[in-house]
């Protein structure tokens, strides 16, 4: 029996259109495809590309802890690898960004001696850089999951860009189907914390990448103090631009110049 393999790929944020040729080839050639899709269109398309495709979306249940769902996904994906099949695990967005089950499936597959790899894909952050015209090289870029940011009191630099993910789902541990903001009080708490570091009139952006080729990205520019009154969904991201410029360390500049001269 040949050794099974696991390849993890992503379909990007915009349905179908952002799937790379490399990812498509993996989906087409796999013995067995499992997927977690963000929309029925992508599901329809994946089933056309490879009839073996099986959705894992059904493992989500209202009120069920997501960590349990992720474990079930991993078990489901690895079983045919152990049987000698070449398995492709497809997720939306970038398969390695905000996805526990894909990373863990690869770790466990490798530990068991199977070949496992992940292909890069278009993430929401990649879309944000393009749509908002943000270049992380200009002033740096800090990126946190919003609940993580609050619970761990992440230290950040207000002179650098700050991206906070999942601001509509702060403190939500289970699965819900409602696309609208899940936890408005969480956004209020987040705003309170940010107001300790930024002025009330600091302009921030609530962002959602375009999900279909006939849609535009959702870009709402608001004053920070007004954030809790803004329409936020479960997939909204908050972009906080730098406040003021950082002071360069001239001594470090000279030290680096001296090092260069040597």
């Amino acid at each position: 029996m040949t050794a099974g393999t696991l390849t993890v790929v992503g379909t990007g944020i915009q349905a179908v259109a952002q799937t790379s040729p490399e990812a498509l080839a993996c989906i087409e050639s796999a013995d067995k495809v499992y997927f977690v899709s963000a929309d029925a269109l992508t599901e329809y398309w994946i089933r056309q590309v490879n009839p073996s495709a099986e959705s894992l979306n059904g493992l989500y249940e209202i009120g069920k802890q997501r960590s349990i769902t992720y474990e079930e996904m991993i078990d489901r994906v690895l079983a045919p690898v152990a049987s000698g099949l070449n398995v492709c695990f497809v997720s939306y967005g970038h398969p390695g960004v905000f996805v526990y089950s894909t990373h863990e499936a690869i770790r466990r597959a490798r530990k068991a001696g199977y070949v496992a790899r992940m292909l890069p894909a278009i993430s929401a952050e990649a879309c944000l850089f393009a749509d908002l015209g943000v270049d992380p090289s200009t002033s740096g870029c800090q990126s946190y999951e919003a609940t993580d940011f609050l619970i761990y009191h992440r230290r950040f630099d207000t002179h650098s860009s700050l991206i906070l993910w999942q601001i509509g789902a702060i403190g939500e541990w289970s699965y819900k189907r409602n696309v609208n903001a899940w936890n408005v009080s969480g956004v209020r708490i987040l705003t309170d914390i940010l107001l300790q570091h930024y002025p009330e009139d600091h302009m921030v952006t609530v962002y959602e990448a375009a999900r279909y080729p006939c849609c535009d990205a959702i870009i709402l520019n608001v004053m920070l103090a007004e954030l809790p009154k803004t329409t936020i969904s479960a997939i909204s991201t908050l972009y906080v631009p730098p406040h003021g410029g950082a002071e360069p360390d001239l001594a470090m500049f000279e030290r680096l110049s001296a090092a260069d001269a040597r």
Partner: protein
Amino acid sequence: MASLADYVLRLARDRNEAEKFRASQQSAKQAMTAFGLSNEHQEILLSGDPNRISQEVQKEFAPWAHDPGWTNTQCMVNVPIPKTQK
């Protein structure tokens, strides 16, 4: 009537079709009518509302289409799971 999903899939895979849709409302209407989309589906696509499009596409595939996984969020905060739920 033509399938909404098939038309959106066409937009996703055919850059020329996407350009036609985006060029102007009139051009989009002509392309959608030529494809055979109903007036209701044309209106939904022209609204540009991703949630409406998702709901309508999902209707075409019920019952096999699954709930969108993107409403699942990934928080990496390590929350202990009670043993009784394992």
